[in-house]
């Protein structure tokens, strides 16, 4: 995507634009009826994006304070992805089973799909983007690459966020202990063996 000419919209920008248009159309269609705010649906006005019933909040994400307006029903996951535009965090099941949306809140790992963004004011939120980037990989990210701890990569940021948190949790030395503590992160490709190897490699070096 980086090589695309500036005029060419990325797939994501294209999807965002079309979704916004659809949402605006849906809301325009309900004029005269009761106002029902839909989480995440945005209307662009002269003042910029405006969301019916939105509340102002400040979230501290990856060490940076972000002043946001969010519908109170927006999950932390949707807020991180759609409002803040940090799309490294993935939406898998959206109800706390798969772990793809794992982020850290005050140093502890949580499923970001299972709480509302407004519940996290004043807390320290860390996403995969805050752990490390292509030029400065976190040791866990490097170990996942070295051990081939993924296939399709969709669950990977959640796996890495869990694995990084695990380093500070009470966890036995053997693979079985790691597997138990990683049980909240599902990998549909079945890269589990390599994921465990990556985590154990980092733990041995620590």
């Amino acid at each position, binding site marked *: 995507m980086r090589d695309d000419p500036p005029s060419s919209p990325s797939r994501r920008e294209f999807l965002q634009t079309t979704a916004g248009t659809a949402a605006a159309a849906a809301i325009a269609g309900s004029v005269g009826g009761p106002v*029902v705010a839909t989480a995440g649906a945005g209307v662009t006005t002269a003042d910029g994006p405006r969301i019916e019933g939105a509340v102002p909040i400040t979230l501290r994400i990856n060490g940076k304070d972000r002043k946001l307006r969010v519908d*109170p*029903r927006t*999950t932390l996951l949707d807020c991180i992805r759609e409002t803040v535009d940090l799309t490294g965090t993935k939406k898998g099941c*959206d*109800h*706390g*089973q798969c*772990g793809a949306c*794992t982020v850290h*809140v005050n140093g*502890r*790992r*949580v*499923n970001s*799909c*299972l*709480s*509302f963004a*407004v*519940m*996290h*004011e004043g807390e320290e939120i860390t996403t995969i983007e805050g752990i490390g980037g292509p030029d400065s990989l976190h040791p866990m990210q490097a170990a996942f690459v070295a051990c081939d701890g993924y296939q399709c990569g969709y669950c990977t940021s959640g796996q890495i966020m*869990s694995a990084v*948190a*695990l380093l500070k*949790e*009470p966890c036995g030395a053997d693979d079985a202990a790691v597997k*138990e*503590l990683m*049980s*909240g*992160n599902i990998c549909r490709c079945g890269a589990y063996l390599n994921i465990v190897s990556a985590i154990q490699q980092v733990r041995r070096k620590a």
Partner: protein
Amino acid sequence: MQVHRPYTLHDALALMAATPTPTPIAGGTDLLVSWHHKPKEKLALLDLSQLGGELAAMRLTADTLELGALTTYWDVIASPEVSRAFPLLAEAARQVGAMQIQTRGTWAGNIGNGSPAADGVPVLMAYDATVVLQSTRGRREVQLDGYYTGYKKTVRLPDELIVAIQIPRRTRKAEWFEKVGARAAQTITKVGVAVVNDEKGWRVVANSVAPYVCRCRNLESALQKGQKFKSPEEIRDILKNDIAPINDMRSTAAYRETVLSRVLFYRLADKA
């Protein structure tokens, strides 16, 4: 749907008395699983996350452990003192969902949600926990054993908020917890049981075998009389009057009854 965000307990209690009656939300690990499927118009949530200072504390004294309503499973796991004083709390906490759930889910939420499969409730009930309820009308304490009146039905009045859970510290001769699910971790209980024998006698508390987490009083009195069991079937015959398991998507009544009596038989043979 409304989300109320009180900053003080005083305001939270005032909002609990409002119409429509809000559902308190703490960790969100139960409510956000099901909220997609609920009609949103009439849904009002009371977000307790800003009440940290007033409700988050965990206090361990010489004779009591008090868990503030926002105490999470992780808070217990991460506290060596509490884990040592109440080992079953830590053991049950480690088996609730995965770590991402344990860091958010609260003990009070587990009680309040009222699921018959709740993993935190059997150990709390076996430890004789008391639920502290507060409303604008005042404060009262209710025994957790007696808190449930039916499937997802409790004695909590609509405007009352669970503010704390109190557990007495006692000398225990035996205590253990067993959870049986489809796999070793990240699973919902097919059948579970917490057993405590302390100065007040035996407590046998089972989950997923009745409309709510319940004590098995007939088995408790048999144990109290010192009865020894020669087979799991003997325990099953006594349990028939204590539990009412059903067939559902997770298991069958026959499996639950059989496994519960076997778990009890083999564990009691070691400890009783």
